[in-house]
């Protein structure tokens, strides 16, 4: 009833092509953004530190992988490693140039990831599908090996880990253990929102259409005049850029330090599952996927506590595993195209509600 576009006339091409053609959607987005910022000002430490900051960071990484796998149809298992490149690049940059604004380095470190990503994307012209997945797996193993074996990357630390130094912007501590959860959340939120906006514009424009054409049938796309190699490499570069920034955020604004194991193959799989559950080829799906894979276990773990059930934490953990697994199957049976598709169906239904026929 409320969600209806009756009376909203489109009088120009711009308004017809808008990403959110319906007024209610636009208001909803504004409301969500405002709410997100308000939570940052009022939320508790646990909510921000353990739930929302990682959720946003993983959403960003999922968006990055979605650009590659969902929009361009190139399966990648190297996400974790590309995130690692971003994190290590940011670490090297900020130790060499400690006086430069750390946020600049977070954003710039993505470019290093994108160079590496494009390099490992080169075989994508010749190989497809599972074979490409194996090629990106090589990237994962090779880069992980670098993070362990090249001591220059972690400044010859005895522990082999990278530690985040304290950095300030305008006198406010942003990174390091002294930074408040609020500050870090607001910084992460701003960067993630900006990159989401960028990614959304990319996929709705010429580049995104090229990617989707390649995904749907690359020979047809080639015949239409789309050059495959630059398009695929661009997809790898942009995707790795986003993942790299997510990796830098992960270490600098959440963990505060990291071993190479943080960027192992499990991280890659986790992000891939987020993309699959959330919905291939959907920006909002990336958020849904991150919510299900990352936040759902946290909520489930807390459930026995609310009811005062005296369960051992290990039992809770096992239960969580099982419930999450079952829910993933339920979601996928209910809608194989992911949560984003469910969301779309829900919107369709809302538009005609309460008179569906």
């Amino acid at each position, binding site marked *: 009833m409320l969600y209806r576009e009756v009376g909203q006339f489109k009088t120009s091409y711009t308004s017809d092509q808008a990403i959110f053609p319906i007024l209610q959607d636009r208001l909803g987005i504004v409301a969500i953004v405002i709410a997100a910022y308000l939570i940052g000002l009022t939320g*508790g*430490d*646990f*909510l921000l530190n*353990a*739930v929302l900051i*990682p959720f946003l960071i993983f959403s960003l990484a999922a968006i990055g992988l979605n650009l590659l796998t969902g929009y361009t149809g190139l399966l990648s298992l190297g996400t974790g490693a590309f995130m690692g490149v971003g994190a290590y690049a940011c670490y090297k940059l900020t*130790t060499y140039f*400690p006086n430069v604004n750390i946020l600049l380095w977070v954003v710039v470190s993505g470019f290093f990831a994108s160079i590496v990503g494009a390099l490992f994307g080169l075989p994508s012209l010749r190989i497809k599908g599972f074979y490409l997945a194996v090629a990106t797996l090589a990237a994962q193993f090779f880069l992980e*090996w670098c993070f*362990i074996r090249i001591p220059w990357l972690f*400044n010859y*630390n*005895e*522990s*082999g*880990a990278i*530690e*985040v*130094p*304290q*950095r300030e912007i305008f006198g406010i*501590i942003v990174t*390091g*253990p*002294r930074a408040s959860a609020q500050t870090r959340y607001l910084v992460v939120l701003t960067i993630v929102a900006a990159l989401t906006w960028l990614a959304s514009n990319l996929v709705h424009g010429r580049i995104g259409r090229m990617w989707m054409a390649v995904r749907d049938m690359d020979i047809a796309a080639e015949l239409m005049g789309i050059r495959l190699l630059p398009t695929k490499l661009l997809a790898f570069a942009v995707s790795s850029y986003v993942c790299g920034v997510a990796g830098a955020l992960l270490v600098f604004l*959440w963990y*505060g*330090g*990291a*071993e*190479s*194991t*943080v960027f192992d*193959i499990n991280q890659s799989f986790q992000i891939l599952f987020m993309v699959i559950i959330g919905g291939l080829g959907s920006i909002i799906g990336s958020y849904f996927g991150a*919510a*299900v894979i990352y*936040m*759902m276990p*946290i*909520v489930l*773990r*807390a459930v026995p*506590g609310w009811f005062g059930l005296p369960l*051992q*934490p*290990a039992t*809770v*953990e*096992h239960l969580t*595993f099982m419930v999450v697994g079952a*829910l993933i199957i*339920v*979601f996928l*049976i*209910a*809608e194989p195209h992911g*949560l984003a598709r*469910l969301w779309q*169906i829900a919107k369709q239904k809302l538009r005609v509600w309460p008179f569906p026929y």
Partner: protein
Amino acid sequence: MRPRFFALATAAAVLAGASLPASRAVAQDSIYVPLFTYRTGPYAGSGIPVANGMHDYLAMLNERDGGINGVKLNVEECETGYDTKKGVECYESVKGKHPAVINPYSTGITLELIPRAAVDKIPILSMAYGLSASADGNIFPWIFNPPLTYWDGASVFVRYVASKEGGMDKLKGKKLGLLHLDAPYGKEPIPVLQDMAKKYGFQLLLYPVPGKEMQNQGSLWLNVRRDRPDYIYIQGWGAMNPTAVKEAAKVGFPMDHLMGVWWSGGDDDARPAGPGGTGYLSLDFNGVGTDYPVIQDILKYVVDKGKSQVDSKSRVGENLYNRGVFNAMLIAEAIRNAQQLTGKKVVVGEDVRRGFESLNITEARLKEMGAPNFAPPVHLTCADHNGHHAVFVVRWDGTKWVKISDWIEPIKEEVLPLIEQTAKEYAEKNTGWPKRTEPCDKSS
């Protein structure tokens, strides 16, 4: 249509639930001791006995003495699965409940928590793991890693080899191998072994085991057979240890020349090798078996009453179980000491840090606790948060670990300068690392 609505409703419920805060209020008439444990995941095999040992000792104190000086301990486990992400989540969820001390039980999680400890005023006890350099109390006032570091352990290995060969000067020309997990934890002993290799003239051979290849060490042991090292030191964890022992038995490497660090000395590390594993050596700093009054008390007050999670009584007294007990003893003694120092009954992190800093568990005190000669006497000071205490060597006799050596002191003159230097480097690299402002208490 119906399943779709169900799925939608579930999704909505999950999203709505996610915004609820997930913490509970804790009564403040008890001391809150969170234990980060892992009973799930690939490292559960090593994690379960440790978790049981820690939990059972603290539960025994509650049952037998009504806590510490009349204050009950509120022991709560948080499952980390040896996963850094979950460890950080655990930390965030317990942080607000005034924990007395945090035991991360993972080097990865410890590294994440070290910088936060000073800010949140919560001491961290990483018993013989974590960052070796954090033994320097002047730079890391909130971190404690007694009774000794990996560097001390490696130096004991060298000292043991020398004693077998007939003196430090006999090390010249010998080949010592290090079989290590190719991760920060496994690489920890390399710098000190390299220093000693230069000084004593032995050759150091490195055999890194990638984390993914833990259970597939065949080719590595071919190299071992080619190189013929005289002794091998294992710095492994989880599935890597039993695989290494099995492979060593298979290629016929002499078992009494194979020695594991204390984390490679679990009962389940040696047992799978069968009779071939007999003779495998490991460093150790806690007694094994149930012949200690304290273990008997645990059996009487906790295990027999069904308040423990051990799956059979025979697992009480295993090496890693007793190590968990020793870990819990350190926690309890630090709390007791903190109560004495502050005069408060219910102590929180800031007090327990002082309790650790002036911790002095003498042999007499160990006896009082029902653990005579169970562990080294632990003495910490403000400058030295580790103690660099002695360890002994145990031998796997096919069914259990048997102590075969006296307490062996680490080569401190090799280790201490390295610790001071790396601690200083750590503080320099982390701009804004706080200078120590915490006052120092007199040792009790």
